[in-house]
């Protein structure tokens, strides 16, 4: 009897870690994490019996670095900006992939590296979604106007469309869009920034004019949920933001705002696998499912971010209306839809990894001089 009791006690401590492995996935929270959880987290949990825990964070690699340096890694998979996959790989915080071997091929047999739209920015990254930095406006703010804003130039046009704007609190995305609004070709933005002296000043001056204009003015947002809120409350008339959040406000919550896709910045989001965690194999297995054709298509059911894989798009197209309400078509709301990519900027993470510190200083100096 006593031995039985001992055994039972011991099993309490040891058996769970053997029977139910857990994988901790770190992401940005809100509607986005929800889409990941419902899209591929829960299905995988059901299929494999591995418990998936979702943890929220607000970006950056500081926690990862602390965990790896102290040798106590509790996070497994992390959702990252491209520039952070580069830094994370350089610092040895993330696992390097052997891409075609590590990730499954498309249903028709296309190898993984060909099924993804582009190559990855670093060896430690696997693509997850494509999202957009576009802008939206509140149509009620311009009652006398026949023509509503439709281009990125309109965002800076305070004569035709007076009112406050909300823009992202950091330099990333603002610099690029300001240059395009100032007449630089969207495809040439980063070349201009790298090669032309004074391009950064030109961009910042464009934004300064907008912010100091008595008919304009700027409010800086820091969290993804802010732009739709600021628009809905009437605090601003136009706001840049992430298209998935705008979509959620429009379709999910019925807010009367309109998105503008001209001059959008197409950006990518990635998963990385953190080095040195105890259950690396289970984590890799989960990641393989998440970024498979079905997994990526699954998350698009809940938010308007485009999956990285070409084969996932095919599933969505065949299954329209794909949105969870069963009536909304997902493809036209994707940042990659043909109608939305007439004039777009492709995010260059390498440029930001290189110049973040310098631009950050110039940007802060500008903001504080307002």
């Amino acid at each position, binding site marked *: 009897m006593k031995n039985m009791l001992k055994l039972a006690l011991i099993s309490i401590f040891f058996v769970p870690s053997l029977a139910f492995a857990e994988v901790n996935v770190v992401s940005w929270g809100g509607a986005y994490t929800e889409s990941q959880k419902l899209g591929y987290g829960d299905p995988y949990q059901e299929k494999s019996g591995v418990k998936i825990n979702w943890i929220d964070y607000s970006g950056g690699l500081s926690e990862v670095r602390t965990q790896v340096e102290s040798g106590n890694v509790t996070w497994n998979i992390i959702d990252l900006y491209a520039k952070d996959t580069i830094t994370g790989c*350089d610092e040895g915080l993330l696992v390097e992939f052997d891409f075609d071997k590590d990730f499954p091929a498309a249903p028709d047999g296309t190898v993984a590296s060909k099924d993804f739209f582009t190559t990855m920015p670093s060896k430690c990254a696997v693509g997850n979604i494509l999202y957009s930095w576009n802008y939206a406006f509140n149509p009620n703010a311009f009652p006398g106007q026949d023509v509503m804003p439709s281009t990125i130039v309109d965002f800076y046009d305070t004569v035709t469309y007076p009112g406050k704007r909300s823009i992202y609190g950091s330099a990333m995305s603002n610099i690029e869009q300001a240059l395009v609004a100032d007449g630089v070709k969207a495809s040439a933005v980063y070349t201009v920034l790298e090669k032309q002296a004074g391009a950064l000043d030109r961009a910042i001056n464009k934004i300064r004019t907008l912010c100091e204009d008595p008919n304009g003015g700027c409010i800086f947002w820091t969290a993804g949920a802010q732009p739709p809120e600021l628009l809905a*409350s009437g605090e601003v008339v136009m706001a840049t933001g992430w298209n998935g959040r705008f979509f959620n406000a429009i379709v999910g919550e019925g807010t009367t705002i309109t998105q503008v896709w001209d001059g959008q910045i197409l950006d990518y989001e990635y998963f990385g696998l953190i080095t040195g965690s105890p259950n690396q194999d289970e984590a890799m297995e989960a990641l393989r499912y998440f970024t498979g054709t079905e997994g990526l298509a699954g998350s698009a059911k809940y938010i308007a971010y485009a999956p990285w894989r070409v084969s996932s798009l095919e599933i969505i197209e065949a299954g329209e209306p794909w949105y969870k309400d069963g009536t909304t078509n997902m493809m036209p709301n994707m940042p990659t839809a043909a109608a939305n990519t007439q004039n777009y900027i492709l995010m260059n993470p390498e440029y930001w990894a290189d110049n973040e510190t310098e631009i950050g200083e110039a940007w802060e100096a500008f903001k*504080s001089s307002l």
Partner: protein
Amino acid sequence: MNNVSSNQILTTDGIPLEISLKKSERRNKIKSFLLVAPLLLFIIVVYISPIVNLLTRSVDNTLISTLLPKTYIALEDWEGKNLPSEEIYKTFFIDLEIAHKAKISGKVSTRLNYAKGGFKSLINKTRRKLENFEDSNYKSQFIEIHEKWGQLEYWQAMKSAMPKYTYDKYLNAFDYEKNFEGKIVEKPKDRRVHKMLWLRTLKVALGVTFCCFLLAFPIAHLLATLPLRYSNLLMICVLLPFWTSLLVRTSSWMILLQQQGVINDILVYLKIVSNDNRLELMYNMNGTFVAMTQILLPFMVLPLYSVMKTIPPTLMRAGKSLGGTPFYSFRKIYFPLTFPGIGAGSLLVFILAIGYYITPALVGGASGTLISNRIAYHMKETLDWAMASAMGTILLVSVLILYWIYNKLLGIDNIKLG
């Protein structure tokens, strides 16, 4: 034997009293030390050692010289007037290849990128092509990979990033930098941000402390003089926000202050301002000031209250009976007696305000960010922890200096925290 101990007092067991006393005292000392030992250990582990770590991180720069040891030595003799010699390019190639094979070349690129933007992609591009290098003309091969290898400024930046210990981060924290000749110069105008942020942080902290003092003094006085049943109610009103989450309080201020918010709505309803001309109460300094003052107010009220409670009301009456006007006796008697409370409250509020982070980020807008937001930026975004450590150290030292000044002026044992 007898001679020696003749003038010593002995205890019953024959040991001199002095020794016996010392023994028992020592035992007592050990006992009391053992009693505080866990606490001491705790403080050393979780308090002292992180601070020491912070201090060393801000000056420690051994990484590059360890990862590129041969280049470190080779660059020591290089004067930096012309491009390095073929020899140095070769040495650098060898170092980089070793680092690449050990998978640590990424660390080199991150560190060098702090010294000069562009190094990151430069090293990343270079290391992909290391395998194709031929064993001659290293210089031209490097420049072929990227023209930046042929630019003097990148080599100068590399050399200036080499020293094992550096105070560059501290210079940077005040918008200065060392140029290649070793002279300390101010940074280009459009990149000066820290000095202004320090000043703004100081201004906000001082301003908030002063506002807190103005508001808290009458409240504390009322608390100390009202009958108990009213003052208890008032005390709860003071403490209630104190128990509420910081985020909740900040967001409620956002609801109140925004242009379509409660305060503006009321003003428009009362026709004090017109609908098109709503006041900007938030996303500027106003917001930061109002929200921070309210949030930090209890830290001023409580020490003031505890001091005022101990001032006997008879003193004021005595002052008046001796012919002083109420204001005169207040100024001469009551007010000076509250100094310990004012000191404690101001010190508390100031120290909390100088490191404030969330509230300025949420309601401060462009002109509302403070130095702590910049520290967080370096911790999270650029991973330049040395820079963050340097700024943290400066913050720590400035608080210590303040404490020292306070001690000199008013005496720290004069302080009363409640």
